[in-house]
């Protein structure tokens, strides 16, 4: 396995002296399935968003093996890195009134110039979109409107959109937070399958310990903006899990 992304002493703050992410270092390898575990407000979303360049860190470095230093990159480099680093969002972030296929095709925008994207995308792109929809089991909904789909189906459209980017890494920000247990298992199994069969690394943030144990190769625990533990999921101790949520309790009590 080779190092895909290396994060060194990363900090992000939205207001002065209030850090959402503080002094975090870790690295991601090709094709591994990592769960970022922590309670809400621990800084998981901010960390994921900064890895895609949606949030600017205030210090530290994010280095990609393929695109170099991300925070100091040119616009072109950043676009290339984003194309390689697909995102799946908690609220799906799809355009309701467009068809499933058109939403999935948005994942191909990074491959085309502005002018080219005004015309219908090439046949090969549309084929890729259909294969992705087949992969997530929604081929029969390709021309339906997104708003007519259930929450679990919408999230699968989000994953298909990430797939057509042909990324090296998928960042999934609480992809199951608004889904029922059955759809949750379906979504996580899908992500795991994509990781194993396509050798795409997946970093998924969750707050459910059980799901993390069930699916992860490796679990990174976060609390109050810091990494509390980072290890293979089999070796994760009960005490460490408690430590993750204790922060929250202490904050609530004091």
């Amino acid at each position: 396995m080779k190092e895909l992304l290396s994060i060194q002493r990363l900090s992000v703050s939205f207001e002065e002296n209030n850090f959402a992410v503080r002094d975090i270092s870790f690295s991601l390898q090709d094709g591994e399935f990592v769960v970022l575990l922590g309670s809400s407000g621990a800084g998981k979303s901010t960390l994921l968003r900064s890895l895609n360049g949606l949030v600017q860190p205030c210090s530290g470095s994010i280095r990609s093996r393929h695109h170099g230093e991300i925070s100091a990159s040119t616009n072109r480099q950043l676009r290339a890195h984003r194309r390689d680093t697909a995102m799946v969002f908690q609220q799906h972030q799809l355009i309701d009134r467009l068809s499933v296929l058109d939403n999935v095709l948005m994942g191909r925008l990074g491959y085309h110039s502005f002018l080219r994207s005004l015309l219908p995308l090439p046949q090969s792109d549309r084929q890729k979109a259909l294969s992705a929809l087949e992969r997530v089991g929604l081929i029969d909904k390709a021309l339906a409107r997104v708003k007519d789909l259930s929450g679990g189906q919408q999230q699968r459209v989000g994953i298909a959109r990430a797939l057509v980017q042909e990324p090296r890494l998928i960042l999934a920000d609480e992809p199951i937070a608004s889904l029922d247990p059955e759809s949750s298992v379906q979504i996580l199994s899908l992500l795991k399958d994509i990781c194993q069969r396509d050798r795409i690394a997946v970093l998924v943030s969750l707050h459910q310990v059980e799901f993390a144990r069930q699916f992860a190769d490796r679990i990174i625990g976060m609390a109050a903006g810091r990494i509390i533990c980072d290890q293979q999921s089999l070796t994760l101790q009960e005490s460490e899990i408690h430590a993750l949520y204790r922060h929250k309790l202490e904050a609530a009590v004091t």
Partner: protein
Amino acid sequence: MSASVDTHRAILRRHELRWRQQFLRVLVILTAVVGSLAVVGLFDPNRIATGVPAIVNLLPEMFPPDFARWPFWIKPLIDSMAMSIAGTSIAVFFSLLLCFFAARNTSPSPALYVIATAVLNVTRAVPELILGMILVAAVGFGALPGTLALGLHSVGMLGKFYAEAIELCDQEPIEAARSSGASELQVIVHSILPQVFPAMADVTFYRWEYNFRASMVVGAVGAGGIGLEIISALRIMEYQQVSALLLVVLVVVTALDSMSNALRHWMVQ
């Protein structure tokens, strides 16, 4: 495998068909646009050849702006401002009454919905200039007929926008309020109004600014305000005064715009 290739092909064909239909619609609209440009004479080389130089010749006659008559403009400006505020208030009052009847989701009956939308359409259909002329004939010169003209015409637009905002508001909180035993009137006041208030404030402040500009138009037919000054200066071809008046109006409209922004910010947190 071949079955899946077939389904893919079928989906792509339908997808392409949709794209072509959309393209066709754009083409139809584009034809209408180019057609109307031709009808109004924008493609008439003679009109353009004589018209453009005439406008260019007129411009130097407007400079420098002549502010000598400024003491006579203060009262009409205050009138215009008062007309816009009073007219908008009248419109808000009637629009608030009508909009709940004109929104499908709150209208008590289909008949009342039809009547309310008809009232809104009629008031919107008669331009404020025509309303101004009729009302000047009825109640005489001055700011009063102008205010009524602005108010009546604004009801059509404000009421329609209010009703649209109500139709577009989220059903879930309404259901929640209803589930708690609230009456229909309570639902409207406590569940719908808080949702649509920002949108209503937006169009209302926009309409206020619009009414100030419209007050100049109705002023031209003797219905009060700064419009009469502008039309008189135009009639006697005092273009330097016209440009001065237009500058004054520009300053007031800009001030009004920032004022309505501040007010909106202050009211809608």
